């Protein structure tokens, strides 16, 4: 079982993801350079956070056309698991693999702090081990994190249970007061209709190592690892 982590020029959370998957979760990890057109037999692909191509034009707009993205789009269309974190989420939206877009935060500031999120759907491969009544404390760090999708898309997403996470307080209460960036309906993460492509603004890789004193992100990786393992077993049968 192998996880591919994509490195774009300007990615800066790539090694955090690699460290967590490799050292904390004890998984086989391979680095995928943006110019490569080969996923190197990855069973799941992670697009890390950062400022790919300096966030020029729009966050994720240029990275979306990297050679590796063509392979990732094919992989996703075949049902392969793809997770985008922060800038990775923005790239997946720009690529049309996820609905909606990430706009400038409503307060026009870069926001970097621990927040709470609660799963809206805990029956997806990324959230299967999460409890809907247990908020997770995970850091965010972004300037373009205001999730937006037109009303019709939001309605479809609600019907398909594509909303993964919402920003909440430590008790799980969802309100505008704890919305860190002005995201519509406090949305912090979404998935595609087929539930194999996931995007989230919070950084679970920054909340997975005991040394950091915050480990709520680990269960998200555990869910994904379990899903990848189950899928391998079912495809090999």
């Amino acid at each position: 079982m192998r996880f591919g982590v994509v490195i774009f020029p300007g990615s800066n959370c790539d090694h955090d993801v690699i460290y967590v998957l490799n050292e904390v979760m004890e998984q086989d990890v391979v680095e995928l350079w943006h110019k490569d057109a080969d996923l190197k037999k990855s069973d799941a692909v992670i697009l890390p956070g950062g400022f790919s191509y300096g966030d020029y034009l729009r966050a994720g707009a240029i990275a979306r056309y990297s050679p590796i993205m063509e392979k990732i789009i094919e992989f996703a269309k075949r049902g392969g698991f793809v997770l985008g974190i922060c800038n990775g989420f923005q790239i997946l939206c720009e690529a049309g693999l996820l609905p909606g877009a990430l706009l400038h935060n409503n307060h026009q500031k870069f926001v970097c702090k621990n927040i709470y999120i609660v799963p809206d759907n805990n029956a997806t491969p990324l959230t299967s081990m999460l409890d809907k009544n247990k908020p997770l404390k995970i850091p965010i760090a972004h300037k373009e994190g205001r999730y937006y999708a037109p009303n019709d898309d939001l309605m479809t997403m609600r019907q398909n249970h594509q909303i993964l996470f919402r920003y909440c307080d430590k008790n799980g209460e969802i309100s505008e007061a704890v919305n860190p960036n002005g995201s519509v309906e406090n949305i912090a993460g979404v998935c595609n209709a087929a539930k194999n492509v996931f995007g989230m603004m919070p950084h679970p890789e920054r909340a997975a190592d005991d040394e950091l004193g915050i480990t709520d992100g680990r269960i998200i990786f555990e869910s994904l690892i379990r899903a990848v393992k189950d899928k391998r077993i079912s495809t090999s049968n």
Partner: protein
Amino acid sequence: MKFIAEINVMPLKNLLDPQGKAVTKSMTNIGFHEISNVRIGKHITLEIEAESKEQAMEKVNEACNKILANPIMEGYEYTVRQA
């Protein structure tokens, strides 16, 4: 033939433009009470090789759709002239 395109990309009207909002407030603060509703987008110029103005316009439109603007959050308009 070489053409020059001038493209304006603007945040969609129904979306909050935090940058524009901040500048609108600052306008009032520095005495421009008659100025309101500042909205900030991008102005892009580019050169394009094409056989005709129509062909150049078609290519510019394609580029806007493909990468220069994101239709979920932005609208665009452009003009094309011979260089």
